[in-house]
C-alpha cells in the first residue's frame, strides 16, 4: 500500500480539482460583475452567491478530510524555505476559501440586503445591519479576493515547478498517478 502514502486520497483529489474550478470561476465572476453595467452584472451576481455558499460547504468538508487524512509528505530534499512556503500557502488557501464566503454573507447582512441564493431561497443575516461594518467587509472581500488570486498564481506556478522542473512527485500526488 505504498501508493497510498504518495498520493492524496481520492476524496482529497476530487475536492481539490472541483474546488479549483469553482474558486477560479468565482474570482473571475467576482471581478467581472463589479466591473460591468451590462446584463452580465445580474447573471454573474446570481451565480456568485449560491456558488460562494457551495464553496463554503465544500471547504468545511475538505478541511475535515485534510485533518483526517494527512497529505503525503513533501520530498525530503526540498529546501526548508520552500517547505515553509508550501505549508503557509496551503493554510492561507484554506483560510481564504472559508473566509471569503463568510465575509460576503456578513457584508450583505451588514448592508441590510436580503441574502438571496435564488428567486426565493434566502439565508438569514449573520451580522447586524451597520453601514460602517458593510464598508469594511466589502473592502475586505476585494482585498482577500486579490490575495486569493495571487496565492492561486503562486500555487499553480509551484505545482508546475514541481511537475516540470523538479519532477519530484508532488504534482502527481494530486493528479493521482505515479
Amino acid at each position: 500500500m505504498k501508493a497510498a502514502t504518495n498520493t492524496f486520497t481520492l476524496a482529497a483529489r476530487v475536492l481539490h480539482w472541483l474546488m479549483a474550478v469553482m474558486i477560479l470561476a468565482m474570482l473571475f465572476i467576482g471581478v467581472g460583475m463589479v466591473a460591468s453595467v451590462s446584463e452580465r452584472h445580474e447573471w454573474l451576481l446570481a451565480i456568485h452567491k449560491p456558488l460562494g455558499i457551495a464553496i463554503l460547504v465544500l471547504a468545511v468538508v475538505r478541511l475535515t478530510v485534510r485533518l483526517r487524512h494527512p497529505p503525503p509528505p513533501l520530498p525530503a530534499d526540498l529546501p526548508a524555505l520552500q517547505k515553509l512556503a508550501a505549508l503557509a500557502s496551503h493554510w492561507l488557501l484554506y483560510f481564504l476559501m472559508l473566509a471569503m464566503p463568510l465575509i460576503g454573507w456578513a457584508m450583505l447582512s451588514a448592508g441590510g440586503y436580503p441574502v438571496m441564493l435564488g428567486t426565493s431561497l434566502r439565508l438569514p443575516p449573520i451580522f447586524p445591519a451597520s453601514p460602517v461594518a458593510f464598508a469594511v467587509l466589502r473592502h475586505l472581500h476585494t482585498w482577500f479576493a486579490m490575495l486569493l488570486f495571487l496565492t492561486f498564481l503562486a500555487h499553480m506556478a509551484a505545482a508546475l515547478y514541481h511537475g516540470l522542473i523538479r519532477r519530484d512527485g508532488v504534482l502527481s500526488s494530486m493528479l493521482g498517478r505515479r
Partner: protein
Amino acid sequence: MHDPAPPDSPARRIGSWALIAAAVAVAAVSFGYVGSWLAPQRLTPAKLIDQFQHNAGTFAGYRRNHAKGVCVTGYFDGNGQAQMYSTAQVFARGRTPVVGRFAIPGSNPYAPDGSVPIRSMALRFALANGQQWRTGMNSMPVFPVATPQAFYAQLQAQQPDPATGKPDPAKVAAFFAAHPETAAFRAWAKTAKPSASFATESYWSLNAFVFVDANGKRQPVRWRMVPEATDAGSDAEKAGSANYLASDLAERLARGPLRWHLQITLANPGDPTNDATKTWPDDRRTIDAGTLVLERTEPQASGPCRDINYDPLVLPAGIAASDDPLLPARSAAYADSYLRRTSEEAHLPGTAAPSAETKR
C-alpha cells in the same frame, strides 16, 4: 511534440520555465481583462459614479445621485388584486411595512428644491417572509435615454465647463442631436414645473419588470404610485425656503397620513420592455394593487432610509427584472455609490471626510 532534448538538458529546462511563466501570465492577463483594469474602454459602475462627481462635486457621506432627500415610513396595504399576476407576498391582502425616501435628482445635497422639476420616491417593502422589494421611481413617465452608454454620454455632455462653471450648451445640444430617443423626455421637461410638494406627484417605475404568477407565467409590467392628494401645495414654497419640500411633507404628515395607489400596467405582447424612453399605449390594462400609506418623515441623516441602497433589482419572488439594459446599470452603479458613502461614513483611509462641504 517532438522534443529531441534529453529530460535534463538546458533547453528543456528553459522550455519548462517559459511554460510556467506563460501559464501565470495568461491567468493574470485574463483576470486583468475581466476585471476591466486591462480593458479601459469598458463602461464600469465606477466610471458612471466618477462622472457624477465630476459634474457636481463630491459630497462625502451622501448618495452620488438624488443626494437631497428625506426619509418616510409607513406601510403598503395590499388588496389582493395583483396576486393573479405575481406570487410576491406584498400583493396579498394585508400590510407590509415600508421605509421610503423622497428626493430630488442631482448630486448636491444642498441644491434648492426648485432647481429641478423632477421628484423621486424610493421604497423598501419588508415582506413577512424576509424577502424585500426595493424600487426607485421618478415623477416623469419616461427616462431620457435607453442605455447605460447613452446615459454616460449625457452625463459627460452635461459636465460643467471649468471656465464658466456651467455645461457647454454646444455639447449638450450635440448630445441631444445624436440621441433622438430623448425627444419624449424633452417634451415632458418643457412643460414640467418643479412641484411644491412630494405629496401631489405621481411616481413612475420607468423601467419595465416582469411579474411571475404561481404557474410561472411571466407578465411584463410597469408601475406607478398615484397620489390621493391633488391640491396645489402648501405655503412652504411661497415662504421662499430652498427646502420647501421637506417642510411641506412634515406639515402634511402632521395632519395625517398620505396615500398613493400602486397602479400596475400590464404590457400587451410586443410592447417594448427594454426601452425606458417609450411609454406604452394608454389603453393598456391597469390594476390597482393596493395603497401606500406614509405616516412619518425624518431627516435622512438620522432616519431609517439613510443606510438603504434603493437598488431596483432587490426583488422578491414573483417580481423579476426585464431585459431593460438600464436596470443592471442602475443596480451596479447604486452599489458603487453605496460603497463610497458607507466608506466615508466609516472614515476609511482614502475617503473624503463626511463633514467636508465641497459645494460648488
